[in-house]
């Protein structure tokens, strides 16, 4: 493992830069010199949607709203959903996984069954069930997508915990009289956190994409725009024919972000030599 330290590479930092840029843009969107995402920039005598131009970099949608500005504002909701979902998944799944991997026995058996059931349940169907039957608030969607992450995160956490719990340093920690709590917090967590960090980047990408899937089924958040909703707006055959930019603008943003998340997560995984992550 010592030999593999080569640095994370240019691509990783490029990805991280993109994520930072898009996050900052999302956070500070209202204060950026963007077009008003709700404003209809109608040009007299011309019927929207307008194609990309120097005024509207990514063109406008059918309502003459600036696609670029809307995509940046869409990032706010999409990123919050992604982040919220994976945080939920990590906290719940991580706890479940670490505890079951460390204590084994009944804890493990029960947690494994819960995760197995979650895994067997087609994820998107679960999400539709919850959002259709409950509500489509931001928190509901984020938590719903988070639930989908519990099992994969939990399995990873359990697997890495098992790996590290077998290592002699844990035995050594026990030998010096560390309590279980201390072993989990001081010895295992720092090690398990790394693969989880890698996974959380991938997971965030998955959550963002899943939101898009929900949007296409018409079940994304009520309030606010998301990338999924923006893509859907231009995905009709006729709009694709006459104004592909309506979809392709947000698609490219979504794509770059997912790509960056995947790539960064993947590099992190390679860098820390995390094996056995299968989603």
């Amino acid at each position, binding site marked *: 493992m010592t030999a593999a330290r080569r640095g994370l590479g240019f691509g990783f930092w490029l990805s991280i830069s993109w994520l930072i840029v898009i996050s900052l843009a999302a956070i500070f969107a209202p204060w950026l010199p963007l077009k008003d995402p709700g404003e*209809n920039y109608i040009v007299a005598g011309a019927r929207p949607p307008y194609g990309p131009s120097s005024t509207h970099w990514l063109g406008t949608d059918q309502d003459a709203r600036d696609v670029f500005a809307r995509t940046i504002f869409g990032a706010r909701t999409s990123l919050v959903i992604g982040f919220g979902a994976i945080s939920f998944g990590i906290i719940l799944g991580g706890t479940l996984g670490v505890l079951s991997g460390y204590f084994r026995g009944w804890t493990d058996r029960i947690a494994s069954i819960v995760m197995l059931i979650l895994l067997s349940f087609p994820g998107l169907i679960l999400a539709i069930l919850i959002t259709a039957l409950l509500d489509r608030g931001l928190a509901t969607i984020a938590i719903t997508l988070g639930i989908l992450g519990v099992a994969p995160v939990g399995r990873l956490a359990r697997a890495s915990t098992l790996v590290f719990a077998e290592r002699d340093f844990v035995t050594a920690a026990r030998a010096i009289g560390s309590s279980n709590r201390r072993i989990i917090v001081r010895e295992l967590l720092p090690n398990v956190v790394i693969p989880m960090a890698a996974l959380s980047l991938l997971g965030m990408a998955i959550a963002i994409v899943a939101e898009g899937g929900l949007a296409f089924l018409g079940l994304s958040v009520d309030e606010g725009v998301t990338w999924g909703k923006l893509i*859907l707006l231009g995905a*009709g055959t006729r709009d694709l*024919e006459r104004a592909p930019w309506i979809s392709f603008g947000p698609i490219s943003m979504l794509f770059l972000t997912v790509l960056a998340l995947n790539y960064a997560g993947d590099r992190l995984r390679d860098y820390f030599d995390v094996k056995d992550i299968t989603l």
Partner: protein
Amino acid sequence: MMRSKVNNRWRRVAASAAVLALVAGACGGGDDDAEPAPAPAEEPAEQPAEEPAEEPAEEPAEEAPETTLVDVTLPPEENVEPVFGGTFRMGLEADVDGLNPTQNNISASGYAMLNAIFDPLAIYDENGVAIPFLAESLTPNDDLTQWTVKLREGVTFHDGEPVNAEAAVANFASLRASALPSLAINPFFPPVGADGSDPGITIIDDLTVQYNLLDPSAYFPAYLTGQLGMMGSPAWLAAAAEDPTLNQRPVGTGPFKFESRSEDSITTLVRNDSWWGGDVYLDAIEFSPVTDGATRLDLLLGGEINAMHTTDPTLIEEMSAEGIDQRIDETGEESFAMINSEVPPFNDLRAREALTLATDREGYQLLINEDLTTQTNGRFVSDNPYHNPNVVQRGNDIPAAQALVAEYCAESGTETNPLTGGPTCTDGRINMEFQWSGPSVVGDRIADLLIAGWDEAGFNVTRDMLLQDDHIIQVAIGGYNVVTWRQFGAPEASVDNVWLLCRTVGFISLNWPRYCDEERDAVLLAAQATTDPAERAELYQTAEQMINDAALYVYFNHTRWSNAFADGVNNACAVTTPEGSTTRCTTNGSGRYEAIWLD
């Protein structure tokens, strides 16, 4: 399965049926917008509001052409010898729940199918006047409360049963017993007796029945052009009552017989060789729901289908550019924002007016309709004699709206809006809920647009996209502040009374805004009782003014329906009655296809 017992509360039950009709309308209605939403529910215009062409109605009367039916291309084809054979394929914008006119709620797409399988007792002629079709004659009594329908002799259903008075009664009974469609007709007939006898219909002789109305109507035949007038085989109706799945396998008298059906994908009909109306050229018709309008057009251009219908103005424009044979009807249902007058804040006229003034009608016309449809101030198109040129739909007046909001809040700002659960006003701004049906891309766009204007005028809007079923239920039981909606547009104006009369307000209202004005009812009923065109025009103009004053509907546009036919489709609009009258080509997007033959 369920029996609706007629009693004092029949109206409520009835209402729910209509509501469901709306559901169907909502599902089927719409334009074609390209959206990949799962549940069909598209539309720029919103909601449901079926084609009014359904039930209740009355009165003879021949005048009242409210029609602006434009043939864009092609004069009637003629002088060519029709050819037998071929399968006519039509792309519909949606599918329907079922094909039983007495049990299901029939949308535009549903009518396209039903018109081929069933024959209504009456049919609209070119001028929008209902004339006999399956019936040989339609005759009112003097006070216009009883209409005698004489059936044609020798007509049989597809299963061989004869069409006679008993069959007509069975159809009426089945409709009355339905949970859903009955809600829209019951307000106009006396209630079914405790013993099950129905005073609404009387058998005169083997081929004659008499419909007994609550109110005089000179235009009752218009009701018979829709579900009320469609005759299904009594044997089939009885069987379907036991096994509702038979609602998918209709047995009528029409030019085509049911062959097979796969819900949401294809319904196949074959020629009825013994149709009473004469020769039918086509071997078969196939109807396929293709919810995406652009896709439908692609199929049409690609020769995969022979015909389609749409309300998408840009598609219509595109088809014109392509030189496609289109039958365009500008008089379809009206799209509007609708306000619930029963609960605060919109139980107050000022709040309604403020909302009306704040509504961005121009934006709607420009963006949602792409300026391709006709903007409207009321229910009638401008060349309709009932159109009142003095009635102007207000909108796009933010300062005036702001003033009214301030006034309202100063006075009634502390009441509770049950929809938001909070006070009607906060900091001088009205709190309201806006509900629409989804999921739908256009619905979201409309919501964005309207809310932007209302927000500017001083409304705090809670967005409430509901799934279709839920949404319609909420509207039916008054669980909304403001919704976008689509209805009216019947060729015969009195058919739309069901949405306006006080008697349809209740726990479940078909009078969605839950607004009762006895005076207005009187005007509307008077208008259906008169056969004098001038008097009628004046009455309707008065009614239009009253509707406008109450500020319940913020009108946007008339729906523009196009029926498009590919090359090689002949006689698309050449249906005549046995008496030789030419019929109206299409009504709210659906027509009849028995005259068609393919090259």
